[in-house]
């Protein structure tokens, strides 16, 4: 049992157990919908967490990649005659290429300067999406054709729940493996001290670029899923507020914690749904809760709770 608990796959196993048991308690289809959204966001958040939590690089424009992924599955089947699944991969590839081109110059920037550069990138994507109405339908957005795999048309929140869940678990496992690979270890070294890792012979620039591309692909796939699941997409998907939301999920759940990514996604997807009961007080309460969480669990929910538990056991 101890060996099992120490294994690096523990978070993935725990998550898998929870998601399989959970639907037994779902009273209606609506809960599948919320669950699906949680998994989709968690996928994007894990990618961003690799960049922020492990490599220590901030991105305030990650929704830009979400947008590229989302519009790929909208534009591909509609205008280019590409099947949805191929468009998803094409979108992921495009996001990777864009991340490569954008990342090379801007990842040299540090701290808040990197934040404003990525913010600018995200805004550029959102602006292009809302202005190229011929392709994207402008600010009103466009319909996304349903995902069809070999004559099987994917529909219904319960089906999507399992697809999103499987992809999310796969994403988690890949992220965990990456963290424990030589690349992952050099990334953590970069987080601790860029100069020290440079002295030790880590190719800082290329490692940062690699993780930026990987996190962009995570976001792109999540964006594609989001668009396919909703059946509709608007430029808001790439907007500044969406980027902030992703960062909030990473920080709230816990930077550098894979399970934290899921917890962050759960809190910020479920909370607004719960708060709708309070009608007009919704936004004020959401802001208040974010503040309180960050003041009292400043390292993020999961790392703070883990630290508390350890202290308590002693």
């Amino acid at each position: 049992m101890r060996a099992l608990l120490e294994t690096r796959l523990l978070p993935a196993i725990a998550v898998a157990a929870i998601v399989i048991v959970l639907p037994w308690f779902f009273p209606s289809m609506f809960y599948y919908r919320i669950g699906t959204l949680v998994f989709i966001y968690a996928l994007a958040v894990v990618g961003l967490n690799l960049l922020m939590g492990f490599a220590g690089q901030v991105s305030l424009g990650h929704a830009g990649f979400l947008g590229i992924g989302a519009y790929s599955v909208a534009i591909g089947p509609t205008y280019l005659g590409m099947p949805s699944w191929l468009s998803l991969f094409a979108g992921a590839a495009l996001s990777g290429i864009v991340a490569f081109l954008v990342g090379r110059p801007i990842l040299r920037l540090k701290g808040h300067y990197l934040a404003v550069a990525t913010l600018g990138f995200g805004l550029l994507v959102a602006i292009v999406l809302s202005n190229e109405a011929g392709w994207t339908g402008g600010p009103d957005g466009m319909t996304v054709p349903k995902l069809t795999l070999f004559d099987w048309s994917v529909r219904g929140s319960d089906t999507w729940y399992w697809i999103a869940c499987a992809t999310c678990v796969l994403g988690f496992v890949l992220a965990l493996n990456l963290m424990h690979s030589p690349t992952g270890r050099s990334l953590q070294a970069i987080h601790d001290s860029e100069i020290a890792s440079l002295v030790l012979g880590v190719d800082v620039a290329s490692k940062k670029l690699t993780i930026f591309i990987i996190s962009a692909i995570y976001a792109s796939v999540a964006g594609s899923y989001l668009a396919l699941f909703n059946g509709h997409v608007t430029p808001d998907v790439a907007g500044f507020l969406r980027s902030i939301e992703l960062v909030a999920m990473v920080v709230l759940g816990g930077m550098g914690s894979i399970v934290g990514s899921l917890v962050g996604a759960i809190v910020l997807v479920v909370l607004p749904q719960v708060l709708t009961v309070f009608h007009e007080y919704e936004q004020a309460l959401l802001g208040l809760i974010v503040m309180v969480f960050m003041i009292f669990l400043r390292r993020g929910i999961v790392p703070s709770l883990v630290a508390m538990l350890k202290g308590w056991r002693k």
Partner: protein
Amino acid sequence: MAELLQFVFSGLTVGAIYALVALGFTLIYKASDIINFAQGEFVMLGGMITVFAAQAGLPLPVAALLAIFLTTAVGLALHRFAVAPARGATPVALIMITIGASIFLRGVAQIVFDKRFHSLPSLFGGDPIKIGGAAILPQSLVVLASASIIVLVLWLFIDRTMLGKAVIATAANRLAARLIGVDTRSIVDFSFAVSAAIGAIAGILITPIALTSYDAGTLLALKGFAAAMLGGIGSAPGAVVGGLMIGMIEALSAGYISSNYKDAVAFLIILVVLIFIPQGLFGRAKVERV
């Protein structure tokens, strides 16, 4: 030529507001290393409180003063009740707190006020003044004059008073400042209060031209942050120049290229500038000690 003059004037007006928001970012960053994303909400509060106080029957100048006073109180409260209790948290956690605060303030404004757009009468009427073929709103001149006065007063204050010196000392080295008897906590309090007041004034000034609503702060915070970074974070002249530059770029690209892409052009230029000058126009390159 008249066209260019027109664009330059509108660019300067908007730019002056961005510059004031950027100054707010800079002041708080200087004193505490925190990027305060609720800065835009100060601007919103300034405009909205004035509008509703005036609707309630207060004379406009009294309403404006009340708005500045209340927003300053909100700024102080933000530091005392949200930022100060989290002392020692990572910069990202502190930024999240200010983002939470901005969502909270937007939500409260939505309840206390409403979701509609509001305007204020301008100080000297709405008839445009003709200068060299360009039509300029009197309120634009009010904005430019007030912004210049604020920058001047702030500079005199920081440069010539004991409290100002204490702010500089705190910005330079917090520990050393505390050792020579500066109450750094009050200095941070003070920087939040002044930033809030400047934001409120910016909000009151721009409302007759650009309207305001409960969610007007987000975009302004974004532009102000970008302006502060373009100028080089922590540099007051940088904040002013950065703000004016972004205002000008926006107005010129809206006039000559496409108004849909004005923000895109602005951020493209910011990206290019940062790629070539990674510490911003007036920022000092940070040397990391090993």
